[in-house]
């Protein structure tokens, strides 16, 4: 299983970063969102730390949808999905591989979103870095576990992005709230005394959707019905 997962990760990374248009589309959309939100600030004003964190996570979520869409579209070109399904390794290896590839891509996208948020929305990273980093990783994990599961949902469907967004966003709400809650703390340095609760929630979300991904992916990712 591990070998297939690694093969999928390597192939997806090669195809997206080295041979494809990579993250360009997803990055542009995310940056555009941050920029558009920066327009809501009047002269001399700046968005509250909470709003800035929300914008950051919104950009990440949109970027995520495009990315998983792209990752699963790779198999649709010449129907290689069927080839993957014939592998002796469990099908979940594909889910895991795509989730990890998505995780790495999302983290790299966030390396750009974060400075963009700081610059355009006039924030500084003054909060304690520990919890912020932990929540960043936890939230990304949950987003990728769910994203990798839902990415398989639209297999063989043309209007994938819109479809994914409709289902993805509401399901993601708890995680986005957690990310926003702690993100606000990272931006203004005020501890809202809820951080341990948010960390717990994000961990619970990750656990539930990692398990759901493992259990349900095999149903979704199948030959033609």
């Amino acid at each position: 299983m591990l070998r297939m997962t690694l093969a999928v990760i390597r192939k997806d990374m090669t195809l997206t970063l080295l041979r494809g248009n990579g993250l360009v589309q997803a990055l542009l959309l995310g940056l555009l969102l941050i920029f558009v939100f920066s327009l809501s600030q009047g002269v001399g004003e700046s968005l509250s730390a909470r709003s800035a964190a929300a914008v950051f996570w919104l950009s990440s979520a949109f970027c995520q949808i495009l990315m998983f869409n792209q990752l699963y579209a790779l198999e649709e070109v010449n129907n290689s999905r069927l080839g993957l399904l014939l592998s002796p390794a469990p099908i979940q290896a594909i889910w895991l591989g795509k989730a990890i590839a998505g995780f790495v891509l999302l983290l790299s996208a966030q390396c750009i979103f974060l400075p963009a948020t700081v610059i355009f929305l006039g924030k500084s990273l003054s909060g304690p870095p520990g919890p912020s980093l932990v929540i960043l990783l936890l939230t990304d994990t949950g987003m990728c576990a769910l994203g990798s599961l839902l990415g398989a949902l639209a297999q063989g469907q043309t209007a994938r992005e819109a479809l994914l967004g409709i289902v993805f966003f509401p399901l993601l709400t708890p995680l986005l709230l957690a990310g926003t809650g702690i993100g606000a703390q990272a931006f203004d340095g005020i501890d809202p005394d809820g951080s341990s609760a948010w960390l717990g929630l994000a961990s619970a979300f990750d656990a539930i959707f990692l398990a759901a991904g493992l259990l349900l992916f095999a149903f979704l990712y199948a030959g033609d019905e």
Partner: protein
Amino acid sequence: MLELDRVARFYGHNLVFKDVSCTFAGGSMSLLLGNNGAGKSSLLRIMAGLARPSLGTARFTADSPKIGYLAHATFVYPALTALENLAFWRDVHGLDNTETDLLNVLARADIAGRAHDRAGTFSRGMAQRLNLARILLLAPDILLLDEPGAGLDAKSQALLRKEVLHARGRGACVVLVSHDLARDATLADRILLLEEGRLAYDGLPALFPPLADVEQACYA
């Protein structure tokens, strides 16, 4: 090696076929015939485990056999080179071939010269040969072919035939879906005909009575 027990397939409420029961042994080559829409491809996918039968069961009698499936779709990633494509499938199937092995396989499939070119620049015939290389690398116990020769030139077709016969020779169970009865019936040692939603004929090619009629029906 492969056993079908009263397999049926519906699309929505439409019956495609039902009550298909047969077993396939190693070292045999079966030719699966039928009109368009008779469900040949569906049956082949059920055999490969890529689709669930609506009723009945399909199971392998051997322990976790390697399954090769070669159809019209080439399974090729256009942005990867031929060698990278092959290396990916090697990892997916958990094989341990070295790069030299991969190059040898590409040579057998007659595309060694383009090993480091991106598959996106290949013609359909070459992409299909790369797909064949994937099968050669896997050396499957069960080889399922769904009109793999469609759109290939004579040379590629000959290569394909040679390798299919070679696979049977080393004991693989081969099932071939084809339209070219006149040519492929000579290769096969068994003919299966899907007609009117059931298995209408299952036996030796020599005893297959309406050879000419069926051929006509195939092209109708």
